[in-house]
């Protein structure tokens, strides 16, 4: 909580107005539509519409495939968030340790982010196709029976790796910025207190980095839940079987490909609720541990 604030009452509303307006028009309005649609059963073109109440929800929740997607999502998101943040943090710290070449490393680290997902999907296919992938080949040479097309575990590893790869750059950038904001004297104080670098990292740097970490946690959760759908779409298409079908992929697939509008809308409403709860949880319980200097 801030000790001092500006006393204006109208100004903050003016400042908020653009964001609120855009949010209302492009988020709340469509979300309300999705909510409406989740109570309907209709064909793709909206020509025949029947109100079915909560039937879509009942159907979705009773579908074992939905439960499966939920499990896949939890596993997938946890893995992606953990590795994407862990690796990025590790590399950000390494980057701060070096004295020369920092800028060089930083520039290269952001590259993957510059690759359009449309191109990235193509690349991952080229690289990891079990038969001809440039990187699958050495795997096979090493005796790994690499087959993400049929082996669920391999498929999961592959999509997690691809999703993590896309996100490392992002996290890396913010961790670097976060590390730079930590007052030098505190690290020095820890060094004096006898803390080894590792210890100082976990007891001082990491806690002081929590605003960044928390921000990234929220962003990465959202990323893993939503934005990775393009990768899954391109790399495994949810397969083999339903091994990599996440909730969002299912929303997309049911709505976008299979054109089952009601189900898809019901799923996105459920998804919204889940994510709102999750975020509320993150802000309520995790942000308590965040230290804002």
């Amino acid at each position: 909580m801030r000790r001092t604030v500006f006393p204006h009452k109208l100004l903050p509303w003016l400042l908020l107005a653009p964001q609120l307006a855009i949010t209302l028009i492009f988020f709340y309005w469509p979300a309300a539509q999705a909510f409406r649609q989740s109570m309907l059963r209709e064909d793709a073109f909206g020509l025949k519409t029947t109100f079915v109440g909560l039937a879509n929800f009942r159907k979705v929740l009773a579908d074992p495939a939905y439960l499966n997607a939920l499990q896949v999502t939890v596993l997938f998101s946890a893995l992606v968030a953990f590795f994407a943040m862990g690796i990025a943090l590790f590399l950000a710290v390494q980057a701060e340790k070096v004295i020369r070449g920092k800028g060089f490393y930083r520039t290269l680290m952001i590259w993957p982010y510059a690759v359009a997902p449309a191109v990235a999907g193509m690349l991952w296919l080229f690289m990891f196709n079990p038969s001809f992938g440039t990187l699958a080949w050495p795997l096979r040479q090493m005796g790994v029976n690499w087959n993400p097309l049929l082996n669920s575990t391999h498929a999961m590893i592959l999509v997690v790796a691809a999703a993590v790869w896309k996100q490392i750059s992002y996290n890396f950038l913010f961790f670097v910025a976060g590390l730079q904001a930590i007052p030098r004297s505190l690290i020095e104080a820890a060094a004096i207190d006898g803390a080894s670098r590792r210890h100082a990292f976990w007891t001082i740097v990491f806690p002081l980095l929590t605003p960044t970490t928390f921000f990234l946690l929220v962003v990465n959760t959202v990323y893993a839940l939503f934005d990775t759908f393009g990768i899954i779409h391109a790399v495994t298409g949810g397969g083999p079987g339903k091994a990599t079908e996440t909730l969002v992929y299912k929303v997309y697939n049911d709505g976008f490909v299979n054109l089952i509008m009601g189900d898809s809308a019901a799923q996105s409403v459920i998804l919204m609720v889940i994510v709102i709860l999750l975020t509320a949880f993150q802000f309520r319980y995790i942000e308590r541990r965040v230290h804002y200097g």
Partner: protein
Amino acid sequence: MAEASPFAARGAGRLVAHFWMILGVIVVAFPVYYVFIASTHTTQTILRPPLPLLPGPEAVRNYQDAFSGGISKIGGVSLWRLLANTTIVAMGIALGKIAISMASAYAIVFFRFPLRMACFWLIFITLMLPVEVRIQPTYKVMVDLGLIDTYPGLILPLIASATATLLFRQFFMTIPDELLEAARVDGAGPWRFFKDILWPLSLTNVAAIFVIQFIYGWTQYLWPLLVTNSNEMNTIVIALKKMISFADADTPWNLVMVTSVLAILPPILVVVLMQRWFVKGLVETEK
């Protein structure tokens, strides 16, 4: 003067750090390298994997071809037009996002007003729904507002994300009270404080957000595809996607790769140019 980071390691530790960074960079940047490599081979070589790991002999020819006709027009639109469109969209998204999210984060952190927390939540929930799952109603809004085939149509819906707001909120909360107090005593109102104190101190974060959002805007695919009906409004990624067809024999993969390299270059340029802001931002200061 950029002085050594307090994290700087001594002796062997520094070498180990270099080792990890090099490894990280190799892993992370490899696919991009891969595109570059592919852009220097013939289509045949590209299609007969595994692709060699070193640049091939066709580099000069591919790039020449690309510029002397191959990709100077994609789908009837000149490459420059595509790049210009993409730049406008990416800049619009990046700058728009920074502007509106800084403003809202500023309101939330540095003011107290009724419904403050409600607004906070109202904005944060928007983190939760990507374009893909709300495409139809959003499209309808675009039509109703007459934004189809316009730059605002390409830009506006994509700046409605809360991530940047969240980031700025987090950052603003770490600004010491004393700075605000000193500025207020110095006679700074909200605008001056923002412009003179907060903005310079946020540069690192602004730079990070800018890079991220610029690239985000640059690589958008689904949304531009939906709201543009005229080829003249296409972005480079749509054009690129149009060139790529796995099922199609005549996809000139070598030129696709050249185009990909060209499509990746501007964002990388942005990263390189923004680089100095990362260094400049907070390194010299002790908040």
